[in-house]
């Protein structure tokens, strides 16, 4: 016996709607929960004062700086590497064993837990190369961690640029480099930026890889070789050591708001860019 097709339609639609609703509900619940617990702790002093007494008092200013600097460094290192690799793989070489090995390697790298990156960064940058617990060690480690994502998303974005655009560019006397920079990259930019945003999010939220490599100093970093604490690490230490739950939730709320703000700002900029190019 088969179901009435209209009934099965209705069941399918209700079922899918329910799954969507559950997803949204979970997301809203998490954000609401964090904001409700965290917002009372947030005020001007919380944002502009440095932590005192291990974070029991004061604000989180130095950890905000630590997060921004570390994330920026990771993105600055990883973006040229990732986008460059993606351009090479898609535009400058035919598909062959080497490209498959590179792609397979990048994919494996993406699946490695972040704490392993932390350990690797600790052994290579902190001890072997002697950078110590520092912004530099942390930034390099984070860069390696986000590299596979950047390669992958950039490659997808570049591949989705219609082949006909390249054909037009070449037929109009464009060199490979001109074609890449003037036709392929502008069209692929929204996708590449999406990958960068994802990476920013991961960097901001990363704890394990950072705590091993950038340390957890509460001072404002003064050079690339200063140890520094990010907001995520700060949250982890505050909660884990039971130093101050209200400050911990305050930090978490700022983290969530920061990630939302980065996303919204990027979508706004991206829309302006897309309007200009279409």
């Amino acid at each position, binding site marked *: 016996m088969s179901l009435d097709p209209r009934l099965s339609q209705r069941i399918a639609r209700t079922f899918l709607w329910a799954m969507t609703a559950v997803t949204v509900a979970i997301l809203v619940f998490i954000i609401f929960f964090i904001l409700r617990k965290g917002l009372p702790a947030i005020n001007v002093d919380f944002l502009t004062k440095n932590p005192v007494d291990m974070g029991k008092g004061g604000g989180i200013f130095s950890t905000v700086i630590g997060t921004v600097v570390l994330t920026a460094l990771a993105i600055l290192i990883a973006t040229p590497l990732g986008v460059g690799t993606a351009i090479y793989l898609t535009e400058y070489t*035919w598909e062959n064993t080497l490209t498959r090995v590179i792609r397979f390697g990048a994919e494996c790298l993406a699946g490695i837990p972040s704490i392993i990156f932390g350990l690797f960064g600790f052994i290579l940058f902190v001890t072997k190369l002697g950078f110590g617990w520092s912004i530099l060690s942390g930034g390099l480690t984070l860069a390696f961690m986000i590299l596979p994502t950047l390669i992958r998303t950039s490659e997808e974005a570049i591949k989705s640029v*219609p082949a*006909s*655009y*390249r*054909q*037009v*560019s*070449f*037929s*109009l*006397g*464009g*060199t490979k480099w*001109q074609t890449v920079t*003037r*036709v392929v990259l*502008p*069209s692929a930019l929204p996708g590449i930026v999406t990958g960068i945003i994802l990476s920013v999010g991961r960097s901001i939220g990363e704890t394990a890889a950072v705590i091993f490599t950038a340390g957890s100093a509460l001072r404002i970093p003064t050079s690339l070789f200063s140890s520094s604490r990010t907001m995520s690490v700060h949250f982890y230490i505050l909660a884990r050591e039971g130093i101050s739950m209200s400050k911990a939730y305050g930090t978490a709320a700022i983290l969530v708001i920061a990630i939302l703000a980065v996303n919204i700002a990027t979508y706004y900029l991206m829309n302006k860019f897309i309007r200009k*190019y*279409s």
Partner: protein
Amino acid sequence: MPTDPVAIRVSRFSHFFGAEQTLIALDLDVCRNEILGIIGPARSGKSTFLCALNRLNDLVRGSRVEGRIEIDGKNIYDPDVDVIELRRKLGTVFATPIPLPRSIFENVAFGPRMAGVRDKVRLNEIVRDSLEKGGLFEEVKDRLNTSALKLSGGQQQRLCLARILALKPEFILLDEPTSGLDPISTMKIEDSLRKLKKDYTIILVTNNTKQAARVADRTAFFLNGGLIEIGPTAGIYTAPADKRTDDYLRGKFG
């Protein structure tokens, strides 16, 4: 100005994609300031031939050639040929209009910019002149800075024509340029081609045998990668030498 009436001389030219032979020992001449029509059924090698002329086939993996194509007496497959320079000399219009996602102005200025033209006044001149020759200027002169993607299909194709004219090419290659256009737009393109013939040598690949009859001075019939016959258009259409040409023109296959 070269005086040889033959602009392109193709001799024993074959083309391969991997193991598959796509053009078979072609021998043909293209004369200066003529419109050469190329007709033939799908997969007869018409488009491959165009892409062999501007070496866009180089971009496809496994592409290989034998024989010679001489343009102004120089074999374009010689190792010392500057491919970029060659492609500027042979402007190509494709079957589907492919405006780049930029403004009308930037589309036309794209080629000259890549060739290193930076001067604003000079670019303005080139863009205006090219759009006029392409028969589009009057329709778009007030909105050169709006997106080229907003133009109609016919306008986009004339934009593509203007875009290659901006390179000041010697040859215009058209690959079924009106296959997606309505009769009025098709007529406008054909009018432009008749005017352009005085300054350029034009090769028009078309699926539409009537189009070749309307605009081509000479017509070549391709079949399965080989040239069956080439001659003055009137002759090909009224008294084809080969039975296969006759069959194709009568619609018996293809």
